[in-house]
């Protein structure tokens, strides 16, 4: 459903992504790991066109993304950020419903109904009237996920969802991601939570210096890594 071919992204002199090739099947759960600055986030941002690729092709459902209007593409490809990026001036319920209402994808009643249902499922109903700054990090991230889910995206790109959270909140968010994945959502997750990665992923991709170094099932990556760079990365993370 998603195909990345020879993707290059440079910022001036710096090459953030160097010839990335990637295919994602419907329903697949992919985890991307790697040291910071290796281009993981940039890859996600190129896929949903927050950054324009320098060269290379990205295809969504067989169509090149540069031929699709960015805002149409982004309704299909949701994104979750490390820093949540909830809309600070809106209450939680409005954060979730503002986009479907303004884009006329739903009536106000439909949007609120659906939002309340999702909030109920995540036990966040009592936060509906609060502002983002009144919520904990974990709650904000779960609201951000609801905000994306209400639009029923086909793919979720998730950029270090737990990077700014404390351990307790991390557990909640990871559990939620797992529940979503069980419903068949296609997901690409950048994370440093190796434990989560090992049981969650259908496929793990290790990136370094803008390249995909190794890709494989979690066993191949974690139990029996052959690549030297991957080995040294894992040993650093585990200590």
């Amino acid at each position: 459903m998603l195909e990345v071919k020879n993707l290059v992204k440079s910022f001036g002199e710096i090459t953030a992504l160097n010839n990335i090739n990637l295919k994602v099947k419907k329903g697949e759960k992919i985890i991307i790991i790697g040291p910071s600055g290796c281009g993981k986030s940039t890859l996600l941002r190129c896929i949903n066109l927050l950054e324009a690729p320098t060269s290379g092709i990205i295809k969504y459902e067989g169509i090149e993304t540069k031929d699709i209007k960015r805002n149409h593409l982004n309704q299909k490809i949701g994104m979750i950020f490390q820093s949540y990026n909830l809309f600070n001036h809106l209450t939680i319920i409005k954060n979730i419903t503002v986009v479907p209402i303004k884009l006329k994808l739903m009536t106000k009643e439909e949007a609120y109904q659906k939002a309340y249902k999702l909030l109920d499922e995540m036990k966040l109903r009592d936060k509906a009237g609060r502002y983002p700054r009144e919520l904990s990090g974990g709650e904000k991230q779960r609201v951000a996920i609801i905000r994306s889910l209400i639009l029923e995206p086909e793919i979720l790109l998730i950029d270090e969802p737990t990077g700014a959270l404390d351990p307790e909140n991390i557990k909640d968010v990871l559990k939620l991601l797992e529940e979503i994945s069980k419903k068949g959502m296609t997901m690409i997750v950048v994370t440093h939570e190796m434990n989560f990665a090992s049981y969650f992923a259908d496929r793990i991709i290790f990136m370094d210096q803008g390249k995909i170094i190794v890709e494989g099932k979690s066993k191949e990556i974690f139990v029996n890594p052959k690549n030297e760079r991957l080995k040294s990365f894992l040993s650093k993370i585990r200590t």
Partner: protein
Amino acid sequence: MDNLYKSLIVDDRYLLILNGLKNTIIITIGAIIIGISIGLFIALIQHNYKENKKNNILYCLTSLYVKVIRGTPVLLQLMIIYYIIFRTANINIILVGILAFGINSGAYVSEIFRAGIEAVDKGQMEAGKSLGLTYWETMRYIVLPQGFKISLPPLGNEFVTLIKETSVAGYIGIMELTKSGDIIASRTYNYFFPLIITAIIYLILTLGITRCLQFLEKGESNVRG
């Protein structure tokens, strides 16, 4: 006491003050409306250029406008508009004042809005886009409401400055507040009461604006995260 009586009551001179006050308020309000419109327009054009590299020509033109207006005295701008641009046109002089001060204020307000928009976390724009909003939709529903809130305090300062600056309008013969005080003073040969009274009225106006904006800021204090 006799002087105070002469300054206000004789020949109904308080009417002069009231008329001046009325004109000062009309010019200020008109200029604020024009200033906000121009300022918002320019701030949006400049942000759009920086974010999307679009509208190069408009960006250059608006930058030039801001530079010229901020780099020349407002009195000179007023005179140029009155004596050169509308020299032959039979136009209401108050309208000239509104236009001149509005055009002047627009340059300053554009910088205030620009700074306000830039102060909104970049993640807000990205989040809006990643949910399928266009750049302009995100600007309108997400970024601008937050940027406007950040702009309120400096915007209040700008209006306080503006109301005081309109006092130079008397130079081209607009009967505004300062001019009224000046006229009364020259007729009564007494400067104390007309000028002090005028000053107190300005003070009431500017303190009033400041109060209003403080109230607005409090009312919107939920906006900031």
